[in-house]
């Protein structure tokens, strides 16, 4: 469906991708859209590459995004963005955390982490927001809010109002983390 907005989210298991997809889905629901999301649980969560997908619009059928049609891509890790780049449509927005998470295949010497990851990311995504979200979240007091910083940066590229995002954030996180997440979201949005 051409009026459907599709966002692909990637990262490493344990980085908080599920929360990011939940907040976006709730925001879209707040805005009155039909919403579908998808995420993978189980084996994939033990530090492997993970992907979540969120789609919203008038009427959404497939929970899975067709390659080459995603409106935006959000990546919680540097090179994971490259693995999923072909899902993004031409000229789509990419929000990429500059953080590198070293896989065991690299630590054990079986493979190499590319030195030029930042250049590759720049080349592949013409419309790019590269963000050191861990540093920003760290300044706010908890590196775990890096996902929400990125979400804030993503929010400007999507047609959802701030009130919907705010309500979605409040609904998705525990009360004691609300303030932190609001700040993290704003920090990302104001970049």
């Amino acid at each position, binding site marked *: 469906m051409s009026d459907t907005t599709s966002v692909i989210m990637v990262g490493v298991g344990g980085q908080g991708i599920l929360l990011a997809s939940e907040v976006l889905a709730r925001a879209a*629901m707040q805005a009155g859209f039909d919403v579908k999301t998808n995420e993978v649980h*189980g084996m994939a969560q033990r530090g492997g590459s993970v992907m979540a997908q969120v789609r919203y619009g008038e009427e959404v*059928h497939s*929970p899975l995004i067709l390659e080459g049609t995603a409106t935006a891509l959000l990546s919680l890790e540097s090179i994971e963005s490259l693995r999923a780049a072909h899902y993004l449509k031409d000229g789509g927005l990419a929000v990429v955390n500059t953080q590198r998470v070293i896989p065991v*295949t690299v630590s*054990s010497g079986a493979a190499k982490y590319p030195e030029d990851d930042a250049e590759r990311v720049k080349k592949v995504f013409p419309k790019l927001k590269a963000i050191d979200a861990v540093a920003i979240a760290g300044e706010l007091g908890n590196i775990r809010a890096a996902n929400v910083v990125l979400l804030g940066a993503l929010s400007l590229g999507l047609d959802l109002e701030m009130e919907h995002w705010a309500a979605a954030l409040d609904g998705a996180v525990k009360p004691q983390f609300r303030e932190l997440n609001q700040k993290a979201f704003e920090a990302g949005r104001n970049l």
Partner: protein
Amino acid sequence: MKELLSGNEAIARGAWEAGVTVACGYPGTPSTEILENVAEHYKDDMYCEWSPNEKVAFEVGVGASLAGARVMVTMKHVGLNVAADPLMTFACMGAVGGFVVVVADDPGMHSSQNEQDTRNFAKFAKIPLLEPSSSAEAKEFVARALEISETFSTPVILRTCTRVSHSRSLVELGERSAPPEVGFKRESSKFVAIPLWARKMRLRVEERSGKLDELVETSDLNRIEWRDRNLGIITSGVCYEYVREVFPNKSVLKLGLGWPLPVEKIEEFSHGVDDLLVVEELDPLIEEHTRALGIPCEGRNCVPGIGELSPGRLMPIRAAMMGREANLPSPVPEAADLPGRPPVLCPGCPHRGTYAALKKFDVAVMGDIGCYSLGTLPPLDKMESLLCMGAAVGMAHGMQKAGEPRKTVGILGDSTFFHSGITGLLDVGYNKGNSTIIVADNRITAMTGHQEHPGSGKTLMGQDTYQANVEDFGRACGIKRTRTVNPYNMSEMVAALKEELEADEPSLIVAKAPCPLHARKLVGPKHTIDASACVGCGACLKIGCPAIEGGGGKPMINQNLCWGCGLCASVCPKNAISESEKAEGAQ
């Protein structure tokens, strides 16, 4: 009111709304969250439990149904193999209170050892199967399945899959209907499957099949959506959503009842369209049925039968119809040489110590299903086979009896041991085996997201309960050499393994330490590498802890990732690894 629910949340809600009072199952991706949601939201109205395995769960469900209660049993596709015995005869006996068994398939094997199409079980057992395509249908179909179960006195399968169970979509919530009266009414000829009465049950199955054949023609669960008539597509389950996405203007016959298959509806539909295409995930049941009716159709010749489908995998069919290539974008060249990122044992995981110790011995290691399966990947690379739940024990025993020159070891987790390792161990004790069985006992069902089990001391409903001990089972199975070891203590673990592997009788080593990810607290103080003492030998990298970052130069420990288990310190030959000065940041 509409809510955004995953398929699994919707199924739990559906059971509650339909007046289910007993829900049970065994965890298995992608089915696990169904019962977790029952426990979280509805346990005041519904009894729920994690049973030790799927067979027991199914039997608990049968007992409740015979007493008149509405019942839901949940499991993943391979779980139904375990529960196949009660399924096949209960299918003949028939349900009293509505009985739905929710079975979650995992096409593409995101988190499974094989790919199975559960529709084959419906055909095999001659019972109906419903296939929802979204969360809204997942909720609704629970109630529909229970109605069919009661009307036709049959167990009903609700087949979901990864992309239904773990997708969220909007669901209209409803009220709970009153549960039926409970009270078992004896009727031996109906409920006792001795040959005398089983023969009568067999005839009733045939009568029931005739009635079900009528149901599938008239039920609104099977619906024709007429649009352009130049192509008609027969589909079911989540594939319906992909079809609507890729072929928005084509006619569709959507089969909400995946089994039995209608004859007249398929004929009517095929007569109304020029060309017919069948889109189904995994096995070609609809296609074979359609062809058997003498109706030509496209199917497996253009729709892949291995792995899960997606809009992308259907695009080539649409393109071919227009005489074009699909031209789907493939991964960018910049991604071609990226390092792989397979799942790994968490930092601080006790299983790492067990494997690190095991690596010192030349033994044949039969593995099993759980987090510790990851011990098969480099750099640990120490598990040589994995078959199914509990198989490690029997396989180690069989290999030893066959004369395998190396000592044989079976390694399995505590939840897996309670699931189906106990009978294997009884065999080892009874038939004078000589294997060493290691139970990697972290006191929880970790892989599926930390569910309680008979050894965890808590029930699914949150009550404190008796804590079953692996060691007690070992002794009861006749394994005299049964001992408990701390897997974080490398020298203790190695010494225990050495003794047991040298002994000329079977042994059971319980490598016991709670899963830190579940306990949510550091195992000990975080560790760091003293760069001046480190010689860069890479010994610490061989234990595969994701917190130890290497790949050029001397390794470093990422303080954000370290859980302080100390294993790396015990493998460093230069004593370069020690507790960090200041323990920063909690996990």
